[in-house]
């Protein structure tokens, strides 16, 4: 499940909490609440969630909680708000446990802490203020073309940057950046860029969609900034710094490249075109149809991903590592799924506990109002203490869950990493394929030359054209051989990148996962202790009944 989705889930967690916790003891009917996320900033990201609330209300006055919404001041105080005390100093102490994971996750205005700093350099990015723009110049037949831009602000002390800079970029710019990085950094574990999302233009405009996208873009850029090599890349710098139009080459769409390729094909078939060594740096793409076919044929011969032949993937260690990573990915995916279930179960129990508390609040109110006998009043008092604990527990479950989501999010992050790893390994496979294709090309040319040379001794006449042919073939072979050498170098480079990236990944994973485990455990333990304390209060207050009735 994407991080964005979880954020939205969390919004609903907050929504239902607001619904649950703002309960007032008169039958007012409906209250509409609108509140800001991270209200300390002056950003205008308002979520107005109208949650009709009925019957009983208990106002909480928690202002020490960093995740707490700054809801409107409580006007409707009544005797029931004594149910829930404000957070004690102990609460504040407890929160320091989670401080390293406790940063706000709704990013605007709050900067990322995920910095791979080798010392004191930092590169912080935030994506804010989505804005609708109109592209009048390139209006399509259907009318004016509208799109959304985002203000991307960078704070850094890296030498190649200006200290603070803001640019406006649209989503297709992000796609371009991603494509250029993929070209330049083959073999690297590049973060996955956000999806393009095939949706109607109507949906594109919706606030929810725009917000999701904003968050996704921010997360992506921060991941790029966190990568020790990529953060220094020219492409990223240009994207973040250069005002106006993004000066990176756009990837043209496949259809037009196919058309271009189709034009070139006849020349290639007649052996007239020369393979430009620089082109072999990339796997055959849109323009070079012939090479696409050749590489396709090659890969079919050797099986997808399977290797044989001259440049064998002799790196057995690599193959073992690859399999281990695949296994890891499988298990990680499984854990991630179970983590989601766990989070849902925690949410459910918190909610039900809250509703149980609510039901008893109503019952308490009822018994108090209708009390004819003293026994009823006593019962109402007993109920009150249980209600207090139940509502507290419900709130604690919600907080626990919000934290749990943050910690276990690491799992999702690494699933994303695995996609990057797979992509990097594909680069490697493609590079091998290119090399093999060229090698086989060389050997084909070579055998044709040999054949022609052999013929010389038997046939007379046509000698000049034969010699000419041999020269041409020899030239082609030389060029192809050069290209092959180039491809081998590319392959070696990619191998190196893979290796260093894998080391980086292992180390980061080690640190990240230990952090996650610790955070998760401290979180669970801390909240459990608080819940125990809340329930012990109620147990003590009702302990008299345990003495009256003997044990069963």
């Amino acid at each position, binding site marked *: 499940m994407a991080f964005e989705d979880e954020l939205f889930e969390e919004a609903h967690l907050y929504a239902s909490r607001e619904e649950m916790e703002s309960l007032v003891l008169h039958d007012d009917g409906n209250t509409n609440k609108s509140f800001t996320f991270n209200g300390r900033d002056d950003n205008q990201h308002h979520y107005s969630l109208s949650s009709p609330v009925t019957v009983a209300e208990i106002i909480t006055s928690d202002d020490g909680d960093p995740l707490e919404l700054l809801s409107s001041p409580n006007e409707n105080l009544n005797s029931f708000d004594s149910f829930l005390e404000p957070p004690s100093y102990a609460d504040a102490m407890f929160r320091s446990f989670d401080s390293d994971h406790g940063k706000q996750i709704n990013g605007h205005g709050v900067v990322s802490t995920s910095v791979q700093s080798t010392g004191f350099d930092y590169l912080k990015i935030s994506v804010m203020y989505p804005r609708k723009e109109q592209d009048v110049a390139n209006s399509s037949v259907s009318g004016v073309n509208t799109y959304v831009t985002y203000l991307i602000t960078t704070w850094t002390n890296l030498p190649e940057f200006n200290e603070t800079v803001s640019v406006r970029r649209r989503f297709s710019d992000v796609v371009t950046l991603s494509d250029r990085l993929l070209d330049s950094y083959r073999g690297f574990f590049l973060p996955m860029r956000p999806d393009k999302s095939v949706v109607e233009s109507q949906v594109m405009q919706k606030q929810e969609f725009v917000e999701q996208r904003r968050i996704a873009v921010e997360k992506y850029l921060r991941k790029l900034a966190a990568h020790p090599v990529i953060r220094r890349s020219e492409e990223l710098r240009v994207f973040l710094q250069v005002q106006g139009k993004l000066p990176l080459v756009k990837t043209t769409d496949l259809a037009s490249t196919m058309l271009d390729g189709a034009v070139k094909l006849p020349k290639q078939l007649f052996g007239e075109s020369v393979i430009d060594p620089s082109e072999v740096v990339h796997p055959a793409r849109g323009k070079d149809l012939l090479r696409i076919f050749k590489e396709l044929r090659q890969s079919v011969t050797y099986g997808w991903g399977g290797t044989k032949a001259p440049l064998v993937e002799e790196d057995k260690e690599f193959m073992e590592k690859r399999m281990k990573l695949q296994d890891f990915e499988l298990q990680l995916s499984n*854990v991630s799924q179970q983590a989601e279930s*766990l989070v849902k179960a925690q949410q459910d129990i918190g909610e039900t506990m809250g509703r*149980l508390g609510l039901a008893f609040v109503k019952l308490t109110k009822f018994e108090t109002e209708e009390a004819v*006998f003293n026994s009823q009043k006593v019962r109402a008092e007993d109920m009150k203490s249980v209600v207090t604990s139940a509502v507290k*527990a419900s709130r604690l479950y919600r907080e626990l869950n919000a934290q749990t989501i943050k910690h276990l999010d690491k799992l999702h992050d690494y699933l994303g990493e695995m996609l990057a790893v797979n992509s990097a390994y594909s680069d490697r496979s493609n590079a091998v394929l290119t090399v093999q294709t060229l090698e086989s090309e060389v050997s084909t040319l070579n055998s044709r030359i040999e054949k022609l040379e052999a013929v010389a001794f038997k046939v007379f006449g046509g000698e000049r054209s034969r010699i000419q042919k041999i020269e041409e073939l020899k030239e082609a072979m030389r060029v192809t051989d050069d290209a092959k050498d180039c491809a081998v170098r590319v392959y070696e480079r990619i191998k190196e990148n893979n290796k260093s990236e894998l080391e980086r990944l292992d180390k980061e994973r080690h640190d990240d*996962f230990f952090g996650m485990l610790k955070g998760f455990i401290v979180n*669970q333990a801390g909240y459990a202790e608080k819940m125990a304390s809340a*329930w012990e209060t*109620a147990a003590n207050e*009702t302990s008299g009944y345990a003495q009256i009735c003997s044990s069963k």
Partner: protein
Amino acid sequence: MITTQRSSTGGGGLQSPRSPSSQPPYLSVSVTDPAKMGNGVQAYISYKVITKTNFPEYQGPEKIVIRRYTDFVWLRDRLFEKYKGIFIPPLPEKSTVEKFRFSAEFIEMRRQALDTFVNRIALHHELQQSEDLRTFLQADEQTMERARSQDTGIFKRKPSDLMQIFRDVQSKVSDVVLGKEKPVEETNPEYEKLKRYIFELEDHLAEAQKHAYRLVKRHRELGQSLADFGKAIKLLGACEGDALGTAFSELGAKSEMLSIKLQREAHHLLMNFEEPLKDYVRAVQSIKGTIAERANAFRQQVELAETIKLKEIDLNKFRLTRSEKMSEAEHEYEELKADSEEATKRFETIVRLMNEEIVRFQEQKTQDMGLAFHEFAKGQARLANGIADAWRSLLPKLEALSSS
């Protein structure tokens, strides 16, 4: 099972006037050892009912009989008939879902509820003297079966039937019969308040019980997801290997252990919190039955009073005309008067009993719920502490592993 201690505090034996022995009178019952009898569709559960008493009407200090659910139902119905005005303790419902009829949990819940049922009767100063109770606790199975089959048929009125009558009282049918426009009901404001209270209380309690039941389910679900999570994390640990792998394995194991704690707490919550709440709901429903009986008795009384008035008019007419019908009419009149007195007495008894019962009921419920709340809070505290301890114990190990 409720011990002798409780029976003496319940004032059970104190009003029994005859015990010759120096020991205070006691009547203690327990319902135990559920056993499945028969096969297929006919299968049912039988229970052992053990009676320990020194009441002179009972045979011997201890008696054991075998009873099934329908026997309990019989007892409840008989008591309901005979002791109008008293809140008869409620019975657990018939199981509607076939699948759960023989599940261990359902059987245990039912056994506990039946045990509570019989004990409440045994502790009630009036109900404990019931002959039907004696039959139930002592008679052999054939006698019991005979008694049970005798009571089927049109004469048997179940509380649900009475509910219908109660509703009819408020309908226009009886009005037409009586020739009146409004239903025949007491105009006692205190009683009105009580009726409203009972009806509203049922709604509130039902809602609370619903959420309590859901909470039990949530505990189970959380337990299950912790188990699954633990298992998955262990597999991931196996993949990782080294210190991190060990850390994952430890976490997974703890998670699985906590899953068990959660299941246990779910059961505790069910038996010690949800079931008492359900019992409370049933008790309130039983009171509604008594309310219906009272309305019935009131109506009868009023009807008879009306009839008598009419009869009086007729009688005076006959007296004046010196008709030969006079003696017959006088005779009828006397009969009616007697009936009317009976009806009035019946009604007044019900009113008196109800007033006593409601006090007792409220006090009893405060006790019952107080205990239930205590068990709830205690259980949750215990669970939370267990969870906290388990996770905390992992921390030093984790520290050691992460630095290695």
